[in-house]
């Protein structure tokens, strides 16, 4: 558990900076904002205790909030996603359970598994985030389109990031 710490501290800082300095400035046709920083929470180890998971989710969301002047929005969406994570993991558990010493990444459990796992959590996060942002159901349809298009872009970025980290592992 402790041996994971440096790697995840690096992930936290790295994804936060990428999000704040690069991705927050990206906007395609007024609809699509990718949120790559949630990959940090997605790849936390299986054994992470629930309380730590929620606290990490809260703090990573809060850091993004502080940089983009939206106190609470990203934090609440990320905490919601963290809450769903154990249930989604249980839902997609392989027949012989998750192996000890592995983490939920594409490198360990394959493309199809990771895609299913990521799609559900990313869409849940974006749904929560965009509806909290609008804070009403009046623009339901346009918000929904935003959720779907942004989720697609976030997923593509997550998959690309996963491919990179996978490549590093095989190189060793």
């Amino acid at each position, binding site marked *: 558990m402790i041996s994971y710490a440096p790697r995840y501290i690096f992930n936290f800082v790295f994804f936060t900076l990428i999000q704040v300095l690069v991705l927050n*400035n990206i906007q395609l046709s007024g609809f699509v904002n990718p949120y790559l920083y949630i990959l940090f929470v997605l790849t936390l180890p299986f054994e992470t205790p629930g309380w730590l998971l929620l606290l990490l989710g809260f703090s990573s969301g809060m850091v993004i909030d502080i940089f983009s002047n939206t106190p609470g929005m990203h934090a609440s969406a990320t905490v919601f996603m963290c809450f769903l994570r154990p249930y989604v993991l249980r839902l997609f558990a392989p027949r012989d359970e998750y192996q000890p010493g592995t983490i939920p990444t594409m490198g360990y459990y394959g493309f199809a598994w990771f895609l299913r796992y990521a799609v559900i959590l990313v869409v849940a996060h974006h749904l929560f985030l965009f509806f909290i942002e609008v804070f009403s159901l009046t623009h339901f349809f346009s918000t929904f389109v935003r959720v779907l298009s942004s989720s697609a872009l976030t997923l593509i970025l997550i998959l690309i990031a996963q491919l990179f980290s996978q490549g590093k592992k095989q190189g060793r």
Partner: protein
Amino acid sequence: MRNFIRFIIKYHFTILFFIIEAVSLLLVINYNAYQRSSFLSSSSSVSGGILKRYSAGSEYLMLRDINEDLARENAYLRSRLPESFRASRDYFNLVNDSTSMQEYIYRSARVINNSTHRRFNYLTLNKGRLNGIEPEMGVISNKGAVGIVKNVSDNYSTVISIINTRLKISAKLKESGFFGSLEWDGTSYQHVYLLDIPRHANVSVGDLVVTSGYSSIFPEGILLGNVEDVELDKGASFYRIRVKLSVDFKNLSFVEVIGHNSIAEQINLEKISEDD
């Protein structure tokens, strides 16, 4: 009691989730209260410092555009010099000397953080209280009005921009003088809507929209944009006018903050009249 503790231990994950979620939703709802404490916004010194360093880099890439803007403004200002007017001996003019009683003071500042894709867009400037910037001051660029200062820390300030659904600005049509309020609907960063213009007003596409000067945050006549489309619903007594903003919020690096010298006097006077 023991059952209660067992219950908490068993469901600690869900309970903790609800507690943290409640805290973050509280943050969202008390948004304005939290905006006031600059600790949680991008005018705080840590995040402000990082963003400043980043904008120093990205600004370098935009130097060509900035130079062009500055050169254009230089040319404009030079054309306002006394030397560029022909003196005619046939008349003499009475000059209102504005230096004896200066009403507005301009301070230049640099934009170090900016967003255009949210519903509530804010800018961060590299100057703050120590540079004489106070909340409620107007912010303009050389192309037109940008927004209003919201929070100020010692060295940074945040600006609520015109393309923020929480901001309404008092604006008028330059030609006819009819005034209304300018609002953003949260979709396109290049367009805002001018509301409350009565239907008997003359509006045509291309008319200039400027600040009205009633709120005394902006001086009168600062350019906001021009009319792009005029809508009038059946039975409605007010126009809904789409205005193309003159400022390109995607490309904004130098702004000026407007201080109003006698604003306290005006507000006090208006308060007295309201209390009567």
